[in-house]
């Protein structure tokens, strides 16, 4: 029986790897791995290939990358604005007007977890989908570029929060909540972008390049 290399690593290479020779590179890694390398070696090779491919694609298409980042920020702002006006705002008004003072905090926490979490995931997925849809055939790279800009934007604030949490443990909860929401946003945006990229039309477009 032919042993298979780490499936997740191969999927990461297929989804995020750049360059025309991605399939041949994957084949080479699988062939070389079967000569007796470890899973760690395979993962290292995949991550290096993905990193180099990402930088190469971004540099080669830097105008498109700038447009993708701008599109992502505009889309997320527009979606956030619409949802706050149509869903979140009216819900909070309902809680304020119809829920007793003692239960309002519960009402808001209920919204944050039960309603907010799926909305947050959908928000991220829709943003990722829009970026991917408008930037074929470089979907994965451009969605990743947008996410990189988000993390860069949030980094100073996260560092400040982390510093505060080190000095005052009461900020640890805020730090964890912030990291979690950023992680959910990242995962959902990637999900939306990769789903767009996995559709048969997108596959055929990529195969022609």
């Amino acid at each position, binding site marked *: 029986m032919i042993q298979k290399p780490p499936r997740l690593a*191969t999927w990461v290479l297929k989804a995020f790897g750049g360059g025309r020779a991605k399939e041949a590179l994957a*084949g*080479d890694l*699988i062939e070389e791995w079967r000569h007796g390398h470890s899973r760690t070696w395979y993962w290292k*090779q995949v991550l290096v290939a993905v990193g180099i491919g990402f930088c190469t694609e971004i540099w080669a298409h830097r105008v498109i990358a700038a447009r993708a980042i701008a599109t992502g920020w505009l889309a997320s702002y527009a979606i956030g604005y619409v949802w706050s006006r149509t869903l979140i705002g009216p819900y909070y008004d309902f809680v304020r007007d119809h829920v007793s003072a003692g239960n309002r905090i519960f009402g808001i926490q209920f919204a944050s977890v039960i309603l907010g979490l799926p909305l947050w995931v959908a928000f991220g997925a829709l943003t990722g989908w829009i970026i991917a849809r408008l930037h074929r055939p470089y979907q994965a790279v451009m969605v990743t570029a947008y996410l990189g800009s988000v993390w860069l934007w949030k980094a100073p604030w996260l560092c400040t929060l982390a510093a505060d949490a080190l000095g005052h443990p009461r900020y640890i909860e805020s730090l964890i909540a912030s990291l979690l929401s950023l992680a959910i946003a990242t995962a959902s945006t990637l999900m939306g972008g990769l789903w767009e990229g996995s559709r048969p039309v997108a596959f055929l477009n990529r195969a022609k390049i």
Partner: protein
Amino acid sequence: MLAIMCLGEDAYGVLIVDELKEQTGREVAFGSVYAALERLENKGFVSSAMGEATPERGGRAKRYFRVTSSGLKEVRQTRETLTKLWQRLPKLQRGTA
């Protein structure tokens, strides 16, 4: 390009990386080799063609590379330039120039 020329008709990713590893004595990442090969191909110094897929490669085909005539010309010019530069260096004694 020199590694591809040494390998002849059989130059594909795994053999190119093995050749580089043997000649340099260092581990070489497949991603960096493919990035370099893609740059060379964009410049017209190498060309590539798909080969056969095998089960050992997860059903993926090999990509064979060969140096083009422009690439050969570039190799010769680089060799001449490097030879001139080496000849201009004072004799190397005990590791110092």
